[in-house]
């Protein structure tokens, strides 16, 4: 009888092993990403179809949540177990961190063949290549974070014409909106959203040089400067214009407030545009897109990239096909139309994009030329995650009233140096 139990166990285990064992004979790529929402997923489908035409199966490994937080955890366990996915959606310094672990695949041959060096902005290349200059990632798009989105009807009502040029104008506009009985700012109180607004405010307050020194190079002097204190003061000022229910709100719900006319403006990256378009609003007519007041001419960027991990020889060919497909103009356009971003390639025509998109593309190219293209701290292009999150902590704590501006400046310097 005892033997029967044992053999029952054995049977169970064997059965479980059978389920897992289905080998994949044909070429395939496994892609870890967090694009599970309808639009993005549909855009990825373009990529999937392209690959399947070439006989490569797409094995989907979506892990949503917290802009990739969960996905990065999963990635760690996958890499540790020696079972890395073929490609992983990743941002900024994370790519460099993984490159330093020596687990990424080299795409240089493909890049040379397809001349990626010529078509991808230099600021982006810094993140898509490892320290030896080898290509390790295929950038999908370029997002820009220092945008302001406004409800045109409310702007018309309170008499805003043309661009809001600088901080003072912004405050004047916000006051007018408040008087008119609207919530001036649609705000989502999550650390990364706080930081997205904060970096725009810093850029607007201190200018491009200061932004680079403070939030890309983390110069302690800049971090502890009076300019930084002013930036914090301005954050406190903005706090006066948000509704009491802001904390924890998802960014798309905040966008919805602008769309529905409950609130007037939102400071958010260009992905917010997708929400407006899906609600059948027209740029320029129903909603306004402009740079965060005082940051015109400068672009804070963020780019989704597919990082390629070292895989077995048998999967290498498929991986190259995937990288090539990601960089293909067809996919870049198709995807970015949906996503609200602009293509990572500067050589693709922008005609298919909407007015805001074309504007964005033009500004990106200009900023690339004039070296006014900086990595967005809030999205992992300003600092490695330890430092990034240390800044988040301070900004969020300050915005929620835990610190005064003076305290915040001090805390910022300390937190950054502790995390470095």
């Amino acid at each position: 009888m005892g033997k029967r139990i044992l053999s029952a166990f054995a049977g169970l285990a064997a059965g479980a092993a059978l389920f897992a064992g289905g080998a994949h004979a044909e070429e395939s790529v496994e892609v870890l990403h967090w694009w599970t929402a309808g639009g993005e997923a549909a855009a990825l489908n373009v990529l999937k179809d392209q690959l399947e035409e070439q006989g490569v199966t797409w094995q989907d490994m979506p892990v949503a949540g917290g802009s990739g937080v969960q996905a990065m955890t999963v990635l760690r366990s996958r890499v540790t177990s020696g079972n890395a996915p073929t490609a992983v959606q990743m941002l900024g310094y994370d790519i460099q961190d993984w490159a330093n672990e020596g687990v990424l695949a080299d795409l240089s041959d493909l890049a040379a063949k397809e001349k990626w060096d010529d078509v991808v902005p230099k600021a982006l290349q810094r993140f898509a290549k490892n320290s030896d200059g080898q290509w390790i990632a295929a950038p999908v798009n370029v997002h820009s974070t220092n945008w302001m989105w406004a409800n045109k009807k409310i702007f018309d009502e309170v008499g805003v014409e043309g661009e809001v040029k600088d901080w003072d104008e912004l405050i004047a506009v916000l006051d007018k909106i408040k008087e008119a009985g609207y919530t001036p700012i649609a705000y989502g109180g999550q650390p990364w959203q706080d930081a997205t607004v904060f970096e725009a405010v810093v850029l607007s307050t201190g200018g491009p040089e200061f932004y680079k020194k403070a939030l890309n190079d983390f110069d302690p002097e800049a971090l502890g400067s009076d300019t930084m204190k002013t930036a914090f003061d301005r954050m406190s000022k903005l706090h006066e214009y948000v509704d009491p229910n802001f904390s924890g709100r998802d960014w798309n719900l905040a966008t919805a407030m602008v769309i529905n006319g409950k609130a007037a403006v939102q400071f958010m990256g260009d992905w917010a545009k997708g929400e407006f378009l899906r609600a059948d609003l027209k740029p320029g007519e129903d909603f306004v897109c402009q740079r965060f007041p005082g940051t015109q001419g400068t672009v804070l960027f963020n780019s989704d990239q597919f990082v390629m991990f070292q895989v077995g020889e048998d999967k290498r060919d498929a991986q190259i096909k995937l990288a090539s497909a990601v960089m293909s103009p067809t996919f870049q356009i198709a995807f970015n139309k949906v996503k609200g971003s602009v293509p990572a390639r500067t050589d693709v025509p922008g005609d298919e994009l909407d007015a805001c998109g074309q504007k964005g593309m033009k500004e990106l190219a200009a900023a690339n030329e004039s070296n006014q293209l900086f990595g967005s701290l809030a999205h992992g292009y300003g600092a490695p995650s330890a430092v990034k999150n240390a800044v988040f902590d301070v900004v969020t704590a300050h915005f929620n009233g835990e610190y005064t501006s003076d305290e915040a400046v001090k805390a910022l310097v300390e937190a950054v140096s502790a995390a470095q």
Partner: protein
Amino acid sequence: MSAGGEGVRLGAGSPFWRAVLYAVLLVFAVYYLLPLVIMLLNSVKPLSEIRGGNLLALPKVWTFEPWHSAWSTAQVGVQATGLKPYFINSFLMVFPAVAISAALGAINGYILTKWRFKGDSIVFGMMLFSCFIPFQIVLIPMAKVLGTIGLAGTVSGLVMVHVVYGIGFTTLFFRNYYAAFPTELIRSAQVDGAGFFRIFWRILLPSSGPIIVVSIIWQFTNIWNDFLFGASFADFDSQPMTVALNNLVQSSTGVKEYNVHFAGAVLAALPTLVVYIVSGRYFVRGLMAGAVKG
């Protein structure tokens, strides 16, 4: 007020107090039911009604489209498969994991109570302590182990992980239950000629109904609801239902289809709900039989 003759009641007999008693119990029933009601109500409303309306209002238009969508057409990844395929993954993982961990717990409990040896309580104490480790800390080393033994990204690997971290609880349950099981029965069976396994199989196991139910409920709900291990150790083709639900609900861009989310959440919860409702009475009985014992 004095207690009634046949047992003890608070405010026995007085209709007023009985009414208060029932009222209080009902208020708490509402408290416990509220989230489920919110989920159910909003899973049968069209999205427009959710946006505009009261979350506790009854639907003006009843629609079961969200349920259909969550089950088979919602966008969970690149493919719009709904939650359906992930259910199968979950079941493939849950059944063997529950069966093996309960079986091991049963035999461990049997040994630790009926075949005691020097140091057995230390062994038990160490096994019990394993119930209390935060699972986050095991992710990295476990990934390494799974990779080394070739179970990374497989259902078997997930089953193994759940068994490992379930043994502590199942052993606890069975041990407490068997501690109250008369040792003379074991001796009698020994005299009758039954060996170690046969005593377990023929004498103990047939009398273990309540505690088997408790273990199964506990393990089933824990494993079914697990997200962390499922997300970390599953492959694209073995992701369990919770990971899919998370992908459905947490997608951060685009229109949030709350009604679909709620329908998906209720779907995901259905198996555990059914287990609890069907076997709830045995659960309390099983707890009485052992798990609560000091």
